[in-house]
């Protein structure tokens, strides 16, 4: 099935999922347009990671429909269009690989996993390294880098395939302030230079608050979906930390928070 180029890069309708009898997602719907920068926020256990795994095609919803570029996630052939940065750095400290080798692995979706790297592939890897300010460390072993640097390596790995939709799961958790600034710069570069859409799952939106187009608040259901300014109008600030989230939800939809989740 060939993907479409018009329309939303991501759409979800009526998505529900439960682990056994424990409902995690109920009738969740959302859409992302090309070039849109969206944050998905919610407390621990709100279903954010489950929703991401469904969107990525790693889990199948029990109800509802998800499409990436107009096709179900598992039927998307041009996988390079989708970039993914997992929640925590999983780079083993004894891994004898360089920064460039790790980022180069992210290029395989575009170049073909069985093909040799061509000049265009090496240029894309170099560009991804520059966009996270790691080009001078390209020959360093990843195990010798700080946590923040390792996270930027994983972001560059996701950027190397030049994705049209980048999904990041808590990318700045535990990362120092300088790395958060560089992270923000690399996302803005991706949005402005490449016109890619970004879906950011994070508790720490302070670094990117001014650049967001939309905020989606999730707790089993979508509690809020709109512009950051509209969220601010409800009296909730985007300069958040995790402890604030339950309070947001109480202010937004007290009927839902009474039942827990």
């Amino acid at each position, binding site marked *: 099935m060939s993907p479409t180029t018009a329309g939303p890069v991501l759409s979800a309708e009526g998505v529900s999922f439960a682990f056994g009898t424990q409902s995690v997602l109920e009738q969740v719907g959302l859409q992302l347009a090309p070039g849109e920068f969206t944050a998905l926020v919610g407390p621990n256990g709100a279903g954010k990671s489950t929703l991401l795994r469904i969107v990525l095609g790693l889990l199948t919803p029990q109800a509802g429909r998800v499409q990436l570029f107009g096709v179900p996630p598992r039927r998307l052939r041009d996988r390079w269009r*989708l970039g993914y940065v997992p929640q925590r750095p999983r780079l083993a400290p004894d891994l*004898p690989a360089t920064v460039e080798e790790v980022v180069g692995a992210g290029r395989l979706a575009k170049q073909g*996993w069985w093909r040799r790297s061509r000049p265009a592939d090496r240029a894309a890897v170099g560009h991804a390294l520059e966009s996270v300010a790691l080009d001078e460390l390209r020959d360093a072993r990843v195990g010798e880098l700080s946590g923040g640097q390792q996270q930027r390596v994983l972001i560059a790995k996701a950027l190397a395939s030049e994705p049209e939709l980048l999904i990041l799961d808590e990318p700045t958790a535990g990362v120092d302030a300088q790395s958060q600034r560089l992270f923000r710069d690399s996302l803005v570069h991706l949005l402005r230079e490449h016109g890619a859409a970004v879906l950011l799952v994070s508790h720490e939106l302070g670094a990117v608050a001014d650049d967001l187009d939309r905020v989606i608040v999730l707790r089993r259901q979508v509690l809020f979906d709109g512009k950051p300014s509209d969220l601010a109008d409800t009296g909730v600030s985007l300069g958040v930390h995790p402890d604030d989230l339950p309070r947001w939800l109480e202010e937004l939809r007290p009927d839902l928070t009474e039942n827990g989740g």
Partner: protein
Amino acid sequence: MPGMPWPLPWPFDTTYMQLALVAGVVVGVSAPLIGTFLVQKRLSLLGDGIGHVAVAGVGAGLLLGTAPIWTSLVVAVAAALAIEWLRARGRTPGDLALAIFFYGGIAAGVVLAGRSATNTNLQPYLFGSILTVAENDVYTVIGLGAVIVAAIAVTRRALLAVVLDEEASRVAGIPVAALNALLAALTAVTVAAAMRVTGVLLVAALMVLPVATSRVLAGSFRSTTLGAAGVGVVAVVLGLAAAREWALAAGGSIVLVTVALFAAASVAAALRRGRTPDAGTLLSGPG
């Protein structure tokens, strides 16, 4: 092989030593290529487990009157795929799955070999007999080694991606399950190829120890892989030389050389970093 004995210096100045050298170098290159990925996937003992299972194949070959290298290849590949299937399903702990095959395989080998009419014992297959390797066996080893080198050359980038993050690789469309199965099958091919060199019980040493040595000193995954193959070749050459000079068991000598090279590399790396090596840093390498 054509032109043997080739004009090589001592200790490789005879035909039997040159056949041993060719077979040994092929295994010395190919086993660490596989081992590089096994070590990073925390599957260092997979080669050992499959080596034990291959004993059942040797027993079957002796019982059926078929060349044991082929029967052990079939049994080892089947067991490797079964172990990988159990591991991927995650319902059987990796070490328990290995143990079941480990003991079942070696017990079946002993039983099957005991039922064979010939008076052949298992020892040459358990611990290798590289100095008595026949020309046909060398051609078989070269063929199996070529399969391993070609497969790794094509899949090494994707295998590195899987080593880095299986989930992200699935999202990127890389065939993770197929590559894991391929790596397990190539491990089995390596076991069969190394049967006459180090024996099936010591083959895992040639997969793991050169990699452990190389990654202590190497600065990249590529140089770790190539360096491990280089260490494998050096170990084969020095091990064969020691075996001829002092009339030692060749397979064991090769493995002992890899142990010595690992210890030397670890000490050199620790001295380079300006501190005294301890067991933890020796086994984990820099970083």
